């Protein structure tokens, strides 16, 4: 019974995680398309390894910034301008 409760708690916690991240603003693809080329917008492709190299789809003008190197590249971009991060 204890094991079952622990498992249920874990599943609940796991499903709640995306909800915790829900306040990160998202941008629709139509909006992004209309703002492509804008000097005020930075687009970052956070995929790494084969996730990036095997993919044919890369947004024009996007800068490659692998997710695991966040601490390194995040310092180089201004915090007051919008940044679009995509991973798929």
């Amino acid at each position: 019974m204890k094991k079952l409760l622990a498992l249920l708690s874990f599943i609940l916690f796991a499903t709640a995680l995306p909800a915790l991240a829900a306040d990160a603003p998202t941008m629709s693809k139509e909006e992004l398309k209309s703002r492509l080329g804008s000097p005020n917008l930075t687009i970052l492709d956070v995929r790494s390894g084969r996730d990036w190299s095997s993919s044919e789809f890369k947004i024009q003008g996007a800068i490659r910034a692998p997710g695991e190197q966040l601490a390194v590249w995040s310092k180089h971009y201004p915090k007051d301008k919008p940044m679009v991060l995509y991973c798929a």
Partner: protein
Amino acid sequence: MKSSLLLSLALGVSWILSPESLVIAGNISGQTGWLTFPSLIGVVILYGICNRLLRTEGLPPAPGREFLILQHGGGSITATTLCLTACLPLTVLAGTALLVTAGYTFNEVFLYWFPNFGFSFLLLALLTILQLFRKEYGLWLQVCFVGLAMGGLLTLSLCGVFSPDKPASEILRQSTGFSFSSASLLLLLFVGHSTSLEQKARPSSPALTIGFIIFFLWILASLGHVTPEKLATSTIPYMTTARKILGDPGRQLMGVVIICGTCGALNGLIILTRDIVDTLSREKTVPSFLSSKKQRWFLPFFLAAAIGTCMATGLAGDELLESLLRSALILWLLYYSLLCLSAVYWVQKVSASTPYPALFCTLLLIAGSITLVVGDPRRLQMSIFIFSVLFTGGLLSTCWYFIIRYHKHAP
């Protein structure tokens, strides 16, 4: 006889038609321009001379030829270590990399809504289940995979060659530089080409000839349609070229080539690994439960579990996979070079004369392997991996050798 030639050919070209080979061929053609052609001819001649050596009369026949030659040159432990380290890491790492590539290709070319990882795992499951049936089924499906991939690639190549975007004179002016390290990369295009199911030794390797024709046409088509800069830096040069040649139908045709090439390469590598392990088991240098004669399911499930773990733990999304895969390919090249060196030693002993051209080619292969490690910016990571794999393989082979000896002499 004819069917064994066809099946040998299907196994021999399995890596040649893999997406990884197409990336290497595309990048090198971008770096060295038209000089890729003489380099490719040089590599094919080099492998051709080595193959002729391995098929010299007096050397043991297939299957198990490779192990016996290596055993003659360096003893049982060395032979077992080299055989195991050439095939196991390559199958696991190439399997991981190729399946992820196939997953992305399927998702981006055919079905947007189908998860790429889902497709990769589905392919892995299907290829693993295939290994549970008789070996003949796997071999005939291999012919289908390879046939489809080859047909698609040749169609694209011929369309590209007969309708180039730029004249041949411009391609000749495009040379962007030649280096021994980039030419050495061409050695990695022909991994496993010498695999043969035929008892009777053939003086030439049909897989090598077919591989040469495929790469020659594909590189010619690539240079005629895409700029060298784009080819040299692209991570998917095959898709860029296919799109330039035939537009969206070209992408779809290349999608079929990539998926069938992945299935062919992985199925071929699993069959090759099983054959090697069966030989080692027959020679009692690895435990008998690894043999497909005893337990058909064990090795395929072990390999599938290793590949699945690598994919699930995110190795595919890590740059580390690229250096590990390159190291695994170099381990195969090292195995092949030492196999040729042992064959030179054998022939020298039997015929009392040294086959100098083959010895020279073998030394070039060894130099190529070293250049591939030293000339790579990830050399430290690669050296650590290569030595760790050789050490672990050597340790396991030694342990098993002494266990068997102990049991033989036990009362």
